[in-house]
């Protein structure tokens, strides 16, 4: 087998894995979009916020230490304890639920029935707000996140492929873990939205807030629920990405990697997020591999978008998105 082909296969495999990581972020978007027609720009910041909170709790950091110290002239930074990862994750989850409640209570509740773009703007405002709060709360320096996930090359795969192709493939263990978690998440979420009463209510809310209210669906409840689930997804994404690169501001920018995935898969489709992620992941990695060197590289940022764009021209609602209803 030609060497280039083997390389391409490795690139494809890695693209698939990268795609899964994108999909993890995209999932959060899909959930909220499905439930409220809101394009939640704050999803990336939520991942950052979740990861920062997780690290803060694990390390026993005092929230808002900097502000407290600046105002009262004290020097408190740490409670002096550390908390095991699993417990910390649960606590963080609780924080995310509180956040969901607060978002609903203070923002979304007052914007029922507004146009999508207004809601979108509100989430951008929320993103700013959360970003500021996260920094004030936990500080803006880089934090190392280690919840015990394996990382680094998967030796088994390396060996197997080496025996077959004479070239060992590189697959990151973390990516494998992410893939498994993503598969589980997607399965659970699809089942939830398609086959449960709450899932149906969630989709109803997305279509028509007023009508949903009129049949007795409590927007409050649905939205808190959905934002909590989205918060959970954000936490998972935050853990994955945070483990890779440390927890810091840039974590929130992974949202930008999720957008083309969303477009391609369809804003409303949970399986779409994963399929879209895979296509984008493979597409951009292959393009960078094959064409990148000719045009000077760093094509990944735009290629994903252009790929999605070209795709959309032929299928305006994405792969699995709900057909845009055009009737008069």
């Amino acid at each position, binding site marked *: 087998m030609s060497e280039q082909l083997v390389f391409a296969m490795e690139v494809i495999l890695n693209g698939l894995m990268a795609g899964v990581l994108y999909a993890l972020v995209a999932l959060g978007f899909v959930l909220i979009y499905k439930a409220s027609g809101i394009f939640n720009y704050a999803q990336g910041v939520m991942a950052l916020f979740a990861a920062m909170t997780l690290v803060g709790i694990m390390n026993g950091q005092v929230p808002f230490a900097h502000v407290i110290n600046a105002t009262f002239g004290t020097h408190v930074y740490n409670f002096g304890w550390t908390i095991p990862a699993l417990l910390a994750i649960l606590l963080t989850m609780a924080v995310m639920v509180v956040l969901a409640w607060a978002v609903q209570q203070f923002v979304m509740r007052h914007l*029922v*029935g507004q146009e999508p773009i207004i809601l979108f703007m509100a989430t951008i405002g929320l993103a700013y707000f959360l970003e500021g709060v996260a920094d004030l709360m936990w500080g803006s320096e880089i934090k190392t996140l280690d919840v015990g996930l394996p990382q680094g090359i998967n030796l088994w795969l390396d060996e197997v492929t080496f025996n077959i192709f004479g070239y060992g493939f590189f697959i990151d263990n973390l990516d494998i873990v992410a893939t498994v978690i993503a598969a589980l998440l997607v399965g659970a979420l699809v089942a939830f939205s398609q086959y449960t*009463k709450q899932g*149906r*209510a969630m*989709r*109803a809310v*997305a*279509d*028509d*807030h*007023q*009508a*949903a*209210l*009129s*049949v*007795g*669906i*409590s927007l*409050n*409840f649905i939205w808190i629920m959905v934002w909590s689930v989205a918060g959970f997804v954000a936490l998972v994404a935050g853990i994955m990405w945070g483990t890779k690169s440390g927890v810091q501001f840039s974590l929130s920018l992974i949202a930008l990697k999720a957008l083309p995935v969303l477009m391609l898969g369809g804003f*409303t489709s949970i399986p779409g997020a994963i399929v879209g992620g895979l296509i984008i992941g493979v597409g951009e990695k292959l393009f960078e591999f094959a064409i990148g060197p000719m045009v000077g590289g760093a094509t990944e940022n735009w290629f994903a978008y252009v790929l999605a764009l070209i795709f959309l021209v032929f299928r305006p609602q994405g792969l699995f998105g*709900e*057909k845009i*209803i055009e*009737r008069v």
Partner: protein
Amino acid sequence: MLDAAQTTDVQAETLLEVNNIEVIYNHVILVLKGVSLTVPKGGITALLGGNGAGKTTTLKAVSNLLHSERGEVTKGSIKYRGQSVHESDPAVLVEKGVIQVMEGRHCFEHLTVEENLLTGAYTRKDGGAAIQRDLELVYNYFPRLKERRRSQAGYTSGGEQQMVAMGRALMSRPETILLDEPSMGLAPQLVEEIFGIVKDLNEQEGVSFLLAEQNTNVALRFAHYGYILESGRVVMDGPAAELRENPDVKEFYLGMSDEGRKSFRDVRSYRRRKRWL
């Protein structure tokens, strides 16, 4: 089975009581200027009036849906079974048995017809079997829906959507239904059917109705009591039978003059308009 006499007896018990409410949209547009009405248990109460009279607004005020339209009730009180429901969540009202069929259908476009109907049963806690039974009942009322059960509601015709909206409300097994213009856009046969269903539900299941309707003719035929709304005020009310005989109502809402129904071709000359206010 209840007969007509019993129905009138039960009317003594008031389910819904709207007391002198005022509604303002956008902080500036005053739409309802003191509307009071009562809906007795087991009765069909009609709310009549021209375009923009405030019928929809009244219904929305009752079911607490004004909020999302930037409207608010600034004065007066709304009581259901004696309890104030003015500030409560719309969902609470549905749980209490009051459901609204909104004007202009408001189907969930991306859900299938059947899923639409099922969302109607959202607040119900009496199990899947009962819900399934009611689903069959709705399909019985509207066979057309059964044919289209798997299509997305957004693609069904206007009339079909109206049926979906009605059916969806029925799925919640309500005690009181607020019906906003159920006849709009429906074929005559279907209008009769829908009102037939209203009557059935009312007589057999004891469901009470508050009915906003432009089609005064039909509405007064089925209702027990009527209110006539104009520019945000109640200008006349009385038992349906009386209203039907009122000469003004006859002329302006039923399109009848002393010689019987006029042809639409004959009303071309510019006419005197009757306004109570």
